[in-house]
C-alpha cells in the first residue's frame, strides 16, 4: 500500500486574502491616516507601488483575561551556572536578555507599531476612496493597460515552441568543444603511444594492456558527453510592454505665496496626483513640469515645488507666461499632448487677473488638451475666479474649475476630462 500524495501547489494561494481584506477593512481609519502620511511623502508620479503601513499595536491587540505580573510566581529555568538553593538575586534574572523581550511579545502590549505592506491596489483603493471617485473611474484608473509582446533577447527557460535553434546549437557546440577538447587530445596522444609500443612489443604486454584500458575509459567518458544538454537550450524571450504609445506633458502650477499653508499644499498635491494617474493610464510617456510662483514664477523640481515656502504678493500671470514659454520652447511639436493643472488660494493682484484671462484664452488653451484650476479656499470668490469664469464660458470643453474645501471636491474638476476619455 503506497501513501497518497496530493500536490496542492496549484491550488489557490490566497486563502488568507479574505482575512487580509477584513483586516484592512477593520482598521481603515488608521490605515487611511497612514496612507495620507505616505502621500505627503511620495512623489506625485509614485503611485504604482504598495506602501508600508504602521498601526499602533495597542489598537489591534486582542484582549483576553490574563494574569498580570504581580503576586508570587515560580518558574523553572534551564542552564543553571551559578545558583545554589537559597540564593537571592536581583531582577531581572539574566540582566535583560531574551526573557524580557519574550514576555513583551507574548502579552501583545509592545509599543512598536504593527507594520505591514499594502499592495498597489489596496493603496490606490484608499486613495480613491478619499477622493470620492465614482466606481467606474476607479476601475479604469487602477487597471494596468493593455500589453503588447515584444522580443527581448534569449532566456534559459521557456516552452518548446520558443526554442531558438541557432542559439541552442551554438551553445551546444561550444560546450562540447570545451568539455571534450582536452580529453580528445589526450586520447590522440595515447593512441600514438600505443601504436609506437605495438611496434616494439607483443599484444599482451602489460604496458599495452594498460594503455588499451585507459583508451577505452577515455572513449567511454567522451561518449557520455551529450550532443545537446538541457543546459544548452535557449528560448526566444518576449516581454510585455504597455500598449499606449503617445506622450504627454503635464504642467503643475502652484501659488506658493505666504497664504498657501501646508494643508492647502497637500490638497493641491492630491489634485496633481489624480491628474497624473489619469494621464498615466492614457499615455506611455509623461513629463511633468513644476512651476511655482509668487510675484515671479520659476520652474523647479518636485521637492522644491511642494516643500519650500515663499512670502510676498501674488502675480498669477507670471506662471502662465512661463508655461507658455516652456510650451513654445520644448513642447511645440504635435506629438505632445499638453495638460495643465493650476492650484491657488485665489489671491491675485487685481490688475493681473485680466491678463491671466488673456494669456489663457489666447496662448494656452488653444495648445492644451485640458486645463484644470482649483481654488483652495473658503472665502469669497475674488477677481481671479471671476475672470476665470468667463474663460470657462468660452472654452467649456478644455477648461474646468472648482472651489475646494475638502479632498472630495477635487474629482468634479476632472469629471469632463474623464467622461471624454471613457466614452
Amino acid at each position, binding site marked *: 500500500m*503506497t*501513501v497518497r500524495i496530493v500536490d496542492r501547489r496549484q491550488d489557490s494561494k490566497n486563502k488568507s486574502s479574505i482575512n487580509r481584506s477584513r*483586516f484592512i477593512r477593520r482598521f481603515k481609519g488608521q490605515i487611511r491616516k497612514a496612507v495620507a502620511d505616505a502621500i505627503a511623502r511620495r512623489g506625485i508620479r509614485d503611485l504604482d507601488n504598495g506602501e508600508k503601513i504602521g498601526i499602533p499595536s495597542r489598537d489591534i491587540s486582542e484582549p483576553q483575561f*490574563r494574569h498580570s505580573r*504581580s503576586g508570587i510566581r515560580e518558574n*523553572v529555568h534551564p542552564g543553571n551556572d551559578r545558583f545554589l538553593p537559597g540564593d537571592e538575586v536581583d*531582577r531581572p*534574572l539574566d540582566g535583560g536578555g531574551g526573557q524580557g523581550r519574550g514576555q513583551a511579545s507574548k502579552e501583545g502590549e509592545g509599543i512598536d507599531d504593527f507594520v505591514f505592506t499594502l499592495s498597489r491596489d489596496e493603496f490606490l483603493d484608499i486613495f480613491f476612496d478619499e477622493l470620492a471617485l465614482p466606481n467606474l473611474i476607479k476601475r479604469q484608473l487602477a487597471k494596468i493597460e493593455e500589453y503588447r509582446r515584444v522580443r527581448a533577447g534569449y532566456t534559459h527557460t521557456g516552452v518548446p515552441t520558443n526554442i531558438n535553434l541557432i542559439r541552442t546549437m551554438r551553445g551546444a557546440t561550444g560546450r562540447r568543444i570545451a568539455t571534450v577538447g582536452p580529453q580528445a587530445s589526450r586520447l590522440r596522444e595515447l593512441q600514438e603511444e600505443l601504436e609506437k609500443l605495438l611496434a616494439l612489443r607483443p599484444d599482451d604486454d602489460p604496458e599495452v594492456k594498460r594503455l588499451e584500458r585507459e583508451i577505452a575509459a577515455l572513449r567511454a567518458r567522451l561518449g557520455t558527453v551529450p550532443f545537446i544538454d538541457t543546459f544548452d537550450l535557449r528560448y526566444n524571450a518576449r516581454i510585455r510592454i504597455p500598449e499606449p504609445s503617445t506622450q504627454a506633458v503635464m504642467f503643475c502650477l502652484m501659488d506658493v505665496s505666504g497664504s498657501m499653508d501646508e494643508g492647502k499644499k497637500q490638497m493641491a498635491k492630491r489634485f496633481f496626483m489624480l491628474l497624473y494617474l489619469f494621464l498615466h493610464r492614457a499615455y506611455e510617456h509623461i513629463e511633468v513640469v513644476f512651476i511655482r510662483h509668487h510675484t515671479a514664477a520659476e520652474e523647479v523640481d518636485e521637492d522644491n515645488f511642494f516643500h519650500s515656502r515663499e512670502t510676498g504678493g501674488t502675480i498669477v500671470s507670471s506662471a502662465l507666461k512661463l508655461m507658455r514659454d516652456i510650451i513654445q520652447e520644448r513642447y511645440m511639436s504635435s506629438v505632445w499632448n499638453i495638460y495643465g493643472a493650476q492650484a491657488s488660494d485665489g489671491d491675485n493682484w487685481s490688475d493681473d487677473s485680466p491678463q491671466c484671462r488673456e494669456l489663457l484664452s489666447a496662448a494656452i488653451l488653444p495648445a492644451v488638451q485640458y486645463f484644470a484650476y482649483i481654488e483652495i479656499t473658503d472665502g469669497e470668490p475674488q477677481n481671479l475666479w471671476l475672470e476665470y469664469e468667463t474663460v470657462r464660458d468660452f472654452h467649456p470643453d478644455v477648461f474646468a474649475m472648482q472651489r475646494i474645501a475638502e479632498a472630495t471636491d477635487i474629482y468634479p474638476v476632472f469629471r469632463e476630462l474623464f467622461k471624454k476619455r471613457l466614452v
Partner: protein
Amino acid sequence: MGKKPSFASTQSSEWTVEAIEHYDLEIGRVARNYGLDCYRHQLEIITAEQMMDAYASIGMPVYYHHWSFGKHFLETENRYKRGQMGLAYEIVINSDPCIAYLMEENTLAMQALVIAHAAYGHNSFFKGNHLFRQWTSADAIVDYLIFARNYIAECEERHGIDEVERLIDACHALGNLGVDRYKRSPPLSLVKEQLRQKERAEYLQAQVNDLWRTLPRSALAEEPETEHRFPAQPEENLLYFIEKNAPLLEPWQREIVRIVRKINQYFYPQRQTQVMNEGWACFWHYTLLNTLYDEGKLSDGFMFEFLQSHTNVVYQPPYNSPYYSGINPYALGFNLWQDLRRICENPDDEDREWFPDIAGSDWRETLNFAMANFKDESFIAQYLSPRLMRDFRFFAVLDDDSRSKLRINAIHNEQGYRELRQKLSEQYNLGSADPNLQIWNVDLHGDRSLTLRHFTHRRRGLAEASFAALDHLAYLWGFTVRLEQQSPDGEVRLLGERKPERRRRF
C-alpha cells in the same frame, strides 16, 4: 534503469514524488516493526505561501473568516520575509486520514524527516493519547469546520459583516476561558450539526426566555429568594454559560458562540500535551531514521543533513542566552522520551530507586503506556528523572513582588529533585496558567447584572487587558457585568463594572 533505485544511492537532494513514496514506504515499515499505531495518512505538497495561509488558520484546511487571522497572516508574512523566522517544516492535522503538509522548497532529507515526524510521530500520538481519543473526533473535524465556515458566511450575509465580526471578537476574547477542562464533549458531525442546529436554536431561545418570565409571581414564592444564586454552581466555562443563558442573543448569535467554543475545545488537548506530543514526534523521527541508517538504507550525507535539523529543533538555550524564551517544548519532550527509553534499557542504581516499576522493563510497552495515559503536567510529574534535571541544569526561581530580590528555591541536587519536578509539572498546568474566573451570580430579580468572580492564587492579579475582555463579556451578556476578586481569606472586592454599549435591535 528499470531497476528500483537503491535507497542509499539516492544521491540528489531534490525530492521527487517517487522518492517521497519510497521513503514513506520504508519509514512506514520500520514504524510498524516498532508497533506504532497510526491513522491512515495523506501527504500534501504545498508552497511557502500556502504554508503561511495554513499558519493563519491554525493549520486547518478550512476555517471561518475573521480579521484577526488576517493579522496573524500579515505578522507571519512580515517575519518570514524579513528572514526573522523560517517556516515550520510541517503542519499536521489531527484528522482521519491524518494530513501532513510538505513544503516544496525542502530537500529530500527534510521531507523524510517531516514524514517520520508528522505522519508517524504526531499521527500515532493523536490516535493513542487518551485526551485526543476522548475529546476529539478525527473523522468529523473537517466536516465541522466546513459547517462552521458556511454558517458564519451565511450570517454575515444576513446580518452584516460588522455585526458578526463584533460577536466573534467577543467570543475570541473569552476563548481561553471557554473550554470544559474535565467533561467530555459529544462528537461533532456535519450532518447532525445541521439537522440539530435549527432545533437547538428554537429550543434554546425558549429556555432562555423562561428565565426571564414576566408572569406575576405568587406571593408565596416571593419570600425565600434571597439565598438562591444563579447559576447554582459557579460556572467556569464562560462561553458555555453565555451560549446557554445570555438573554438577548439571537439564535444565530448563540450558534456562533457555540462554534467558537467547540473549535476551542477541539484544540484544548493540543495545548495540554504540547511537550509530550512534540517530544514524541521528535523521538520517533530520530528513532525511525536512525534505524533505517543502521540497516544501511540511508547515506551519510542524508544523516548529516537530518541531524543538523534535528539538533536545531531540540536545542535548549540556557536562561541567560539572548535566544532564551522559556523552555523549548521540543527539547524537553524529546529528552524525556529518550530518557524514558534509557531507563528501560540501561537503568542505573538511581533509576532503580526512582523508577522501580519501569527500570528494566520493555521500553515499547512503557512508552506506549505513557503516551496513552498522560498529559504534560502529569507526564513530567511521573517521569522527569534526576539525571534529566541535571542534564538541563534546571533551577526554580521564586518571584515575589513584595520582595526586592528573586529567590532560588531549588536546584538540580539531591534535596531539590522532588521540588523541582513538582514545580516544573505545575508550570504546565493550564488550569493555573489562566486566571481562575467563574460566573458567580446573575441578579435574576433585579437588573439582570452578571457577576464574574476572580479567585486569586498567590496574590496574582489580572492584567489590564482583562478589562477590555470584560467589555466583550458585557456585550455578549447584554446587561451590566461586574468583576469581583476573592482572595483566599474570603475577602471580596469589586474590581470593575461594565455596561454594554447600546445594542442594535432588529
